[in-house]
């Protein structure tokens, strides 16, 4: 069904010769020189809206929810004018086999040329059947679609890192996209956040379409343009941090004055995201502005870094769960006590041997 303008003309019995003639006429009628005709022809032959297959795995669908809240561009304009959202089971009209057929059609027509947008992630436990699509593991649909795509966008922390379902003990073995075994090696753009900021999502898409290239990524695969700085680096409460003015408890004097939330657990200093710059919902606010510490929702494994209200986070393993001060403080006490005991024993021994000598 999806055709370029050229294909539509061909289907209507127009020859390539007359198509090219049409292009030069168009160029002329637009006041452009004849040299523009090949460009027009090229665009018409090759430039359908870029097809996007948006697959859903284990997730909460909040990334989609965030996406539709984009204020600039409007989600409506992205869907109607920028991309061709051919498959997205959250909003598509078709269901069941008519829905699944679209994936095959897209692969046939746009092999290697569509974008695979992944929200959520596939589970590997339960034979992969803790996420079933069309009677089969989601893993299969994902791998199949990835085999033929141009590039993958990993929406949100689920696709990028695993997110909540991958939190300890990850009962389904939910696996982020870049770690899925057997996945075709395709460029992966991670847009983490739980969810990501709507305008960041649409900006990533718009950038790709406008500049016809993928954004520059950091070592972890995130677009540098939105993920190269921490919340803390541009936080409007930063002067209070430097001053040593902290919220000590919620709704205290400091909370009302907008003091820094560091002591109630803010993860802004360790979280790479654009919340303090772009802000949320058309630039209206962000968690810290509403008085809640950043919980680090765009960071790998943020669910398992200890309490959201603790500044120092837990260390797992060694059969213990304690923060660095609890663990280190205890160790230092043990070492100090051991040294003291050793000193006492040494002193006794020395006294004895000296007694023997003198």
């Amino acid at each position: 069904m999806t055709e370029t303008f050229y294909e539509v003309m061909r289907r209507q019995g127009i020859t390539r010769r007359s198509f090219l003639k049409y292009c030069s006429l168009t160029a002329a009628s637009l006041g452009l020189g004849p040299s523009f005709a090949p460009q027009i022809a090229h665009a018409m032959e090759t430039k359908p809206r870029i097809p996007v297959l948006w697959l859903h795995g284990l997730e909460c669908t909040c990334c989609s929810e965030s996406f539709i809240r984009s204020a600039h561009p409007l989600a409506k304009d992205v869907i109607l004018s920028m991309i061709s959202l051919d498959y997205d089971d959250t909003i598509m009209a078709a269901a069941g086999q008519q829905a699944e057929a679209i994936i095959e059609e897209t692969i046939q027509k746009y092999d290697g040329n569509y974008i695979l947008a992944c929200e959520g992630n596939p589970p590997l436990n339960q034979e992969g059947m803790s996420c079933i699509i069309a009677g089969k593991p989601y893993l299969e649909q994902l791998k199949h679609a990835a085999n033929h795509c141009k590039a993958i966008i990993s929406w949100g922390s689920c696709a990028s890192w695993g997110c909540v379902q991958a939190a300890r003990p990850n009962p389904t073995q939910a696996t982020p996209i870049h770690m899925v075994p057997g996945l075709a090696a395709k460029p992966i753009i991670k847009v983490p956040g739980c969810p990501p900021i709507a305008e960041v999502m649409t900006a990533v898409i718009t950038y790709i379409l406008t500049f016809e290239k993928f954004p520059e990524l950091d070592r972890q695969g995130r677009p540098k343009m939105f993920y190269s700085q921490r919340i803390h680096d541009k936080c409007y409460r930063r002067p209070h941090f430097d001053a040593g003015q902290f919220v000590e408890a919620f709704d205290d004097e400091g909370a009302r004055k907008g003091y820094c939330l560091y002591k109630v657990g803010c993860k802004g200093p360790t979280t790479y995201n654009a919340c303090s710059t772009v802000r949320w919902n058309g630039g209206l606010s962000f968690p810290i502005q509403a008085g809640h510490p950043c919980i680090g929702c765009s960071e790998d494994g943020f669910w398992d870094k200890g309490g959201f209200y603790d500044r120092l986070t837990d260390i797992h393993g060694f059969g213990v769960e304690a923060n660095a001060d609890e663990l280190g403080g205890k160790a230092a006490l043990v070492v100090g006590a051991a040294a003291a005991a050793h000193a006492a024993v040494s002193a006794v021994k020395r006294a004895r041997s000296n007694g023997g000598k003198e």
Partner: protein
Amino acid sequence: MSTDSAHPSHREEAVYVYEAPLRLWHWVNAFSIFTLAATGYLIGSPPPSVGGEASASFLFGWIRYLHFAAGYILVIGFLFRIYWAFAGNEHAKQIFLPPLWKRSFWNELLHEVKWYGMVAKEPLKYSGHNPLATLVMHVMFVWGIVFMIVTGLALYGEGTGMGSWQHTYFSSWVIPLFGQSQDVHTWHHLGMWVFICFVIVHIYAAVREDIMSRQSIMSSMFSGWRTFRDGAPPIDKK
């Protein structure tokens, strides 16, 4: 060297072990680590809030500034200490190159363990570090300082941002290596406690050896001279 005439004559045999630059480094290093631990602890658990205008106070900023300044002193000192390992006397190399491949090293180390375990009656005497001290200092101080510097600079590079040398050479690979920034903080913080533990042991051992092994230890780090009270020559001196 052991017969340096400038040294006041002693009943005991004396060896010049720690040259002045090394001693200077030792105390600068110790001082910066104390500062780093104190300010580092406060970075993790800030003091109670101060009131007034944010612009009128820079308390936490100063705490962090002090930490970073001490951090740089540590870095520069350590770079110098590496240089001195080449330029200084043979003792200056010791903590960098424990002779792990030598059987005698391990035998003597075992003896040292027995001495601390109060099984052996007498310690072996060394003009430099004993093998146990060498190994512990190598692991805890050399690699410990490397670890703190690498993680510290990685954290520092997060603030200076992409493009800064700290970010390029440290943050860019250290952060992903640990998982995420929060993990680097946690391990850097834990590193502080490891240091505290070994400084306790280090100081205790220095004091104890001074008293028990009948050779100068603490004063050596001030004067540079190691003296042996009962005159027996150290085994690492031929």
